[in-house]
């Protein structure tokens, strides 16, 4: 009578007990590979940060007169003044985009989740996802060819004439329409799908019970939305908006194509005096840049990275605080 399970196993597998070790090798290799892939992520991200810092350092340590427009002749303004208007332009364009896109994003999400017929809403959800994947260069072309001239002709002058006393709408309207207002609108259209998609998802997750409780109490549809859906979806909407903000901050091509930039701080929406954004500035300048100019652009990229990182961290914080 055999009393050894190992013998028993050996007989079955036709191998010695080390055959068990073969499997273990497979396990070790596979788990090692997957852990290695995880480490690749960490290394890559560290690489991104380190390479950017390393390549940006020459610009940060150089004499201020060598940095910025005219830097090659020693008439530059220095890095901080140079990046200042860019940061301002980046944030300003994103704020405009966000203030347009968020209300519309919520409204459309509500329309899809609570107003549209069920079958239509599924299709609409799909269309929204698709719109999020339309390449930004296409939005840029559309902005420059279609939206900018149309707005400059029909809309901006009206605001300028009737509401020109508000500083935002003042100044001379740029006839080509390549102004901050158009950039803001195009960015809004671009980030709308993300905001809508995330809001729609949380709205659809509203517990049916809460909605029915509200309706059973005789609430109208709007009242049901206000007391059941919106409070439930608030943090989702916020994190969607933050994600949209992150995307708007980093958006390059649409801005690069549309905006007629200048190195200024200006809140005016329709004029030719528009602060550029970091990303668009890099895209426009990089192909023609050499030496220290490249370092300067990489340094501005580093600043952009820091800004988006900050926004993303805040966004995670909000979405973590979501009702689990």
């Amino acid at each position, binding site marked *: *009578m*055999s*009393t*050894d*399970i*190992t013998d*028993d*196993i050996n*007989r*079955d597998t036709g191998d010695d*007990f080390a055959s*068990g*070790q073969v*499997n*273990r090798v497979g396990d070790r290799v596979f788990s090692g590979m997957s852990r290695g892939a995880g480490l690749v992520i960490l290394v890559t991200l560290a690489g991104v940060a380190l390479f950017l810092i390393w390549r940006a350092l020459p610009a940060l340590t150089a004499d201020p007169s060598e940095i910025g427009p005219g830097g090659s002749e020693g008439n530059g303004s220095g890095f901080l003044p140079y990046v200042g208007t860019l940061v301002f332009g980046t944030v300003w364009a994103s704020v405009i985009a966000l203030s347009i896109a968020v209300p519309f994003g919520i409204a459309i999400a509500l329309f899809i989740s609570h107003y549209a017929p069920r079958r239509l809403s599924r299709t609409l959800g799909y269309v929204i996802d698709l719109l999020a994947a339309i390449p930004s260069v296409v939005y840029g072309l559309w902005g420059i060819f279609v939206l900018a001239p149309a707005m400059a002709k029909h809309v901006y002058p009206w605001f300028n004439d009737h509401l020109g006393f508000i500083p935002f709408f003042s100044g001379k309207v740029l006839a080509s329409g390549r102004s901050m207002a158009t950039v803001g609108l195009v960015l809004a259209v671009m980030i709308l799908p993300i905001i809508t998609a995330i809001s729609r998802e949380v709205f659809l997750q509203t517990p049916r019970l809460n909605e029915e409780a509200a309706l059973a109490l005789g609430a109208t549809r709007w009242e049901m939305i206000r007391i059941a859906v919106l409070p439930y979806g608030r943090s989702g909407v916020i994190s969607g908006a933050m994600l949209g903000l992150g995307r708007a901050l980093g958006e390059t091509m649409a801005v690069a194509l549309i905006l007629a930039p200048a190195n200024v701080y200006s809140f005016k929406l329709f004029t030719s005096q528009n602060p550029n954004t970091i990303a668009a500035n890099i895209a426009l300048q990089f192909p023609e840049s050499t030496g220290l100019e490249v370092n300067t652009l990489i340094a501005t990229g580093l600043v952009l990275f820091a800004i988006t990182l900050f926004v993303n961290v805040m966004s995670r914080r909000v979405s973590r605080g979501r009702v689990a």
Partner: protein
Amino acid sequence: MTNNDTDQRTTSTGAGSFVEHRITVRDLNIFYGKFRAIADVDMDIEPQSVTALIGPSGCGKSTFLRSLNRMHEVIDGATVEGSVQINGVDLYGPRVDPVLVRRKIGMVFQRPNPFPTMSIAENVLAGKRLNQRRLKKNEADEVVEAALRDSNLWEEVKDRLDAPGGGLSGGQQQRLCIARAIAVEPEVLLMDEPCSALDPISTLAVEQLMLELKEKYTIVIVTHNMQQAARVSERTAFFNIEGTGKPGRLIEMDDTAVIFSNPIQQATQDYVTGRFG
């Protein structure tokens, strides 16, 4: 159970030599992290019989069952002290590969879990195929038919072996899972509440199957259904827990008839007569 009864089994599985898979548990303690789920269990499980583990929810009987083929290790932080021996070999010995242990000691779960990407036949063959055995077509067919016959499913599915396993009824799925488990030719079959997700008729079919399977396998079953324990098992072990946060303990183990009619411990008496649990 006497040795004479098991002669038949050895010839039928063709294991080559006479092997009795008696399970001996000594001083077994099971931990999840710092929490002790099972304390100081000693148990002898007879070969070629059905042993039932009963007890109130949370008493650790499922944990104990899973420690018999090292399945509890799948859960993070689970550790074991003590020994579980099969014919004198400690399953927790330093050179023992849990993967090989599980090929010898199969398991059937509470919810039927056929692989959804595989057909009925592929499900039955999963254990063999995934364990790197190359099977010839006719060999594979034989394994499928034998396992499905042994699990009383052959007649019902022989015309649709290539259909997805997920398309069967709950009871059929569970018998498919049993077929899948016995196709790897284990010596012991552990069943974790195999009927709790099934309707009464399917339950009956699975119970019937257990009575047939014990001719070949040592079966340990966890059940909440005391009638079931009484119907299918020779031996019954009663586990209990003093309170939340306390470990589960083996209170009493005896012939099933004794446990249900004349147990020694008052707690067992209370439980089997339905006074708590």
